[in-house]
């Protein structure tokens, strides 16, 4: 039992002979890895860099350090409204998508029923349908059933694309612990509902938190569906896009972008930390 939990822990303390390390230190793969990381992150670093630059032009050389774009950002009512809208939509989407994802994941991992595989692929479909196609389809649907475009229509579309995310995260979590644990709870006098809250939910909690964060961020980020389905109230990505026409507004958008970048980074690291922590807990006794 102990061997299992040890095996799943990262082998951080494994001793590698120093001669091996030195031999490989500056090899081809080292530079490949450096270039790879630079490719991933250097473009994003321009955001914070220019958000502190004392010029409305996004160009080198840098002029001087300033915080005024952050001040301007805070003073912009339209921007703050859009931010608030985005937080509202993403919050609701995260909760709804995670609930639906949990129901789907429970069905997929605990029950057998006809056409289970087909149904799973069907739920995964929004994952692979191009956003622009989905956007147009939803726009047509919204008009044909006479619905007003609003934050609600954006949220519905976001739930649609977030459920597959949530389901995948939660399936892997539910498969990670023994279904005998739920049977043991039923056997000890709890019904299906109380068993869910006393056993399934606490054990799936790391997955639930990861799902909430992931779906929140994908809704918060999402542009195309929001672009098609936005009414008078816009989400942040739409607002930013609309501001790109005015060069003077750009630096404050960069300031906001830098803040979002930082918060997203912290949230993702946190979600991943929670997920790993959950995985390394020994959940299968005696297996």
């Amino acid at each position, binding site marked *: *039992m*102990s061997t299992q*939990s040890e095996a799943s822990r990262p082998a951080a303390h494994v001793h590698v002979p120093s001669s091996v390390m030195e031999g490989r230190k500056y090899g081809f793969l080292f530079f490949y890895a450096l270039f790879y990381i630079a490719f991933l992150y250097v473009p994003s670093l321009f955001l914070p860099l220019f958000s502190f630059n004392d010029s409305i032009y996004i160009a080198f050389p840098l002029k001087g350090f300033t915080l005024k774009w952050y001040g301007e950002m805070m003073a912009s009512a339209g921007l703050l409204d859009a931010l608030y809208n985005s937080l509202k939509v993403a919050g609701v989407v995260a909760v709804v998508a995670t609930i639906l994802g949990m129901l789907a994941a429970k069905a997929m991992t605990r029950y057998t029923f006809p056409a289970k595989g087909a149904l799973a692929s069907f739920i995964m479909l929004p994952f692979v349908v191009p956003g622009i196609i989905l956007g147009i389809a939803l726009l047509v649907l919204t008009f044909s059933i006479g619905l007003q475009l609003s934050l609600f229509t954006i949220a519905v579309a976001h739930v649609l694309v977030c459920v597959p995310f949530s389901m995948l995260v939660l399936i892997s979590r539910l498969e990670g*612990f*023994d279904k*005998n*644990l739920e*049977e*043991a*709870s*039923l*056997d*000890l*006098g*709890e*019904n299906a509902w109380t068993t869910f809250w*006393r*056993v399934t939910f*606490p*054990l799936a909690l790391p997955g639930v938190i990861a799902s909430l964060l992931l779906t929140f961020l994908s809704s918060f980020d999402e542009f195309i569906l929001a672009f098609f389905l936005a009414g008078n109230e816009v989400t942040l990505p739409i607002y930013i896009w609309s501001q790109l026409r005015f060069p003077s507004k750009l630096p404050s958008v960069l300031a906001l972008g830098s803040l979002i970048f930082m918060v997203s980074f912290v949230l993702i690291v946190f979600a991943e930390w929670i997920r790993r922590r959950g995985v390394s*807990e*020994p*959940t*299968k*006794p*005696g*297996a």
Partner: protein
Amino acid sequence: MNQAMNTTTNAIISIRSCSKLFGPVRAVDDISFDIARGEFFSLLGPSGCGKTTLLRMLAGFEQPTKGNIFIDGAGMAGVPPHLRPTNMVFQNYAIFPHLDVRKNIAYGLRKAGLDKKQLDAKVDEMLELIKLPGFGSRAAHQLSGGQRQRVALARALIKRPKVLLLDEPLGALDKKLREEMQLELRALQRNVGITFVFVTHDQEEALTMSDRIAVMSSGKVLQIESPARLYEMPNCKEVAGFIGTMNFFDAKVKGREGNATLVDAGPLGTVRSTVNGSTAPGAGAAITVALRPEKINISFQQPNVGENVVKGTTSAAAYLGDRSHFYVSIPGRDKPIAVASQNIERASDASRTDQTVWLTWRDDSVVLLTS
């Protein structure tokens, strides 16, 4: 008529014509029997024989496709697991990893309406019973296999079930601990007086612990007997072969002589059996003669007896300290006869293979099997 009346007065569990089909597979095939109150009852059989499915039907995790189950007189059709007077010890124990030992043991008492003091007292009593006092605050992953097994037991017993169901609970333990737990479990069962239904594929385990054993194969119950009777008087070749080792000989009934049945057992010659009594089949019937290895006496000198003796050659011998195993070839038979012998005399290093030996046995050791 109320079907519950079919149960005998002393039965805690009555299984009536129960079948369970998984698609085309008959996991449990038309089984009927009773389990008595306070009994240690084992379901024994190879994997896939339906014993675990039957146990899960008693627990309510599976519903019978056909037939009925009564527990303490009440029909169990459609009754979910949480409303049954049974509790289960799972094969891998299913200790809740997010709860400590105390909370695991107290898990089933949420609705019992006890205050904290009463609850603590009950849990302490259980920790005492499973000999783990002071382990209450341990987390599940800090327990050894044997300790998990005890916690699983306490968690089920604290509910005071009418029937405790155990699904191969000792399978994951090493040999020494397993033997220790067998005795402990048996003592515990006598102590609490709860009916135990114990699933195992280990025949020795079943013989050690049970009041009665049901031997299962391919979804059917072959025989239900006490350990001694099951071992001494198996009712068919399959049971005889599954419990311990058995030598089989094709044979034909010749007739009766007093309370003995005379049988022509080919290379063994004519043998007499007093085991089956008047239930033995009549003259001319093709049957199987079964003889346990330890019921055969082996000697290196010709014994002074006229019947129940056969001469052979040892083709293999194993010295096991307290006893020896011999494989003896006799003329007219391909398969050597297995013989187990107590080493009463001091053994020497002299070779014991390719020796001429004589095998003898008693009339009451010869079991006649009709199928």
